[in-house]
């Protein structure tokens, strides 16, 4: 096995502006936030985002004007309310949004995971999602019964970006036995063409060998692995730390007023690396408060 360990900066450098990105996690949990911040720090833009429920990462990209198109099932920040940047982007015609239901979007990721060109579903019959997106929602007949369904294109993207728990340097990523599985990370990993995973901690390969059933992303699917402790902050990473409610509320106050600039200055432009971000966003005391290990 080959070491795939790289720095956060080098991982972000792999991704050119204009790429399509599948972003994992869910709304305010376990998304690769540090990696998205680094993309913005490197002034990348023009992205297409594919997500299951999109959330904070998509809103950050929208705030920076770095996303042109979103395909997802939801955009919002759960208990913290609306995704203001995304919402403005759509209302002002800057973001091309393609809506899918959960069953429909998951089936698109599963088709990509299986190397199939399209998924079949009857979830979108009669909906506005089918009516307004003839490019991606096509009728298809069951050849056995003649019944009408829809074909949807597989959710293929250039890069898939996930945040995980632990991994070895080869890219074998494991979850803890107690975890929150309310996302599609394992399916997105399987569906990835180029997969970059940030994790809380790199552990020795010998640790991975002890519990191979907990490996949900095997090394052969991974192009780059990055150690980024608190890499999902201000979101939660289940089993590691809770969402940072104070940070999120501060974020929402600024975004509601359309003030992405002040936030970006503090947390994206000024910090030259992840350690500087953590110093800007957290005190040691606060970090310990959020930790649930």
């Amino acid at each position, binding site marked *: 096995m080959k070491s795939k360990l790289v720095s956060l900066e080098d991982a972000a450098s792999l991704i050119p502006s204009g790429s399509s990105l599948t972003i994992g996690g869910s709304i305010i949990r376990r998304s690769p936030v540090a990696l998205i911040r680094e993309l913005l720090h490197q002034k990348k833009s023009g992205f297409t985002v594919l997500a299951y429920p999109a959330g904070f990462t998509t809103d950050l990209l929208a705030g920076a004007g770095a996303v042109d198109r979103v395909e997802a099932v939801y955009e919002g920040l759960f*208990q913290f309310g609306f995704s203001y940047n995304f919402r403005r982007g759509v*209302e002002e015609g800057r973001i091309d949004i393609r*809506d899918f239901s959960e*069953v429909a979007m998951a089936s698109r990721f599963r088709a990509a995971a299986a190397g199939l060109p399209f998924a079949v579903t009857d*979830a979108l*019959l*009669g909906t506005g999602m089918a009516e307004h997106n003839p490019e991606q929602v096509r009728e298809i007949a069951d050849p056995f019964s003649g019944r009408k369904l829809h074909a949807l294109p597989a959710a293929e993207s250039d890069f898939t970006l996930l945040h995980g728990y632990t991994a070895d340097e080869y890219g074998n990523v494991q979850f803890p036995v107690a975890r929150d*599985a309310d996302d599609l990370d394992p399916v997105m990993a399987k569906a990835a063409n180029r997969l970059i995973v940030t994790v809380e901690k790199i552990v020795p390969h010998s640790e991975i060998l002890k519990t191979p059933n907990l490996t949900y992303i095997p090394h052969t699917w991974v192009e780059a692995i990055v150690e980024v402790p608190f890499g999902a902050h201000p979101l939660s990473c289940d*089993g590691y730390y809770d969402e940072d409610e104070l940070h999120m509320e501060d974020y929402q106050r600024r975004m509601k007023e359309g003030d992405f600039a002040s936030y970006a200055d503090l947390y994206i432009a000024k910090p030259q690396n992840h350690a500087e971000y953590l110093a800007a966003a957290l005190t040691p005391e606060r970090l310990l408060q959020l930790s649930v290990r």
Partner: protein
Amino acid sequence: MTSSSNYSLNELMVVAAARELRNGDLIFVGVGTAGRAFTMACGIPIAAARLAQETHAPDLAIYWNNLLSPDLQQIPERLTQHYLTTWPTAAQLHNCSDKNDMLSKGRFDVSFDSAPQIDRYGNLNITAIGDYRHPKRRLIGALAQTDHFAYVRRPLILTDLKKRTFVEKVDFITSVGYLDGGNSRAEAGLRPGGPSRVITDKAIFGFHDESREMELLTVHESSSIEEVVSEMGFLPRISDNVSVTVAPTEHEIRLIRDVIDPRKILLVS
């Protein structure tokens, strides 16, 4: 069963919802954002499920946030991630694909849905107000609400009665109710189903068996047919025997206040 004369509208909605639940039901509870939306999407449904377990449906189970059959006797004190991760539950589905498969395979009996726009035929819109491509107000998308109306046997709509919510025709169909009424749902290829009840803060509606129009069934004690109709953007059918919504019993109210939600985690606003 003495009916209580002292109850909140939220408590009435919990009781009305609980009465729609049957023993053995598997219930899909959605994602709420903050405040009133949380109460509608999560608080009232979870309280109703628990109330039904305590009264007539001991074998009922809920799915929430990828937890299948979380122990409703141990509702966590907060709902941040860590409390969800460690909430005692029979199963943490392995990823959302399992939940989606359960939906499209038709394993759910009831779902709770609410929306900023609902029309005469029970179609919902949680996607966009105005023109979809140039919306006046972009909403949150679709989530599984589309899938609920496509696959769940008896979806329940829970929402406050407001003129801007109850519209003649939704701007965008996120969830297909009875589409254009009559047989149009089946003609569009959808499976049998569609919303069963609309439970609001003022009244409860069903859908007429043939025309599939929304039909006023009961009005809460605190309201009237006139008030209900004045809060709607379309004139619903009025059932020939509209009655007063059955009030919660004292036992039900005691269960809600003392057993189910003593810390006011569910019925927050």
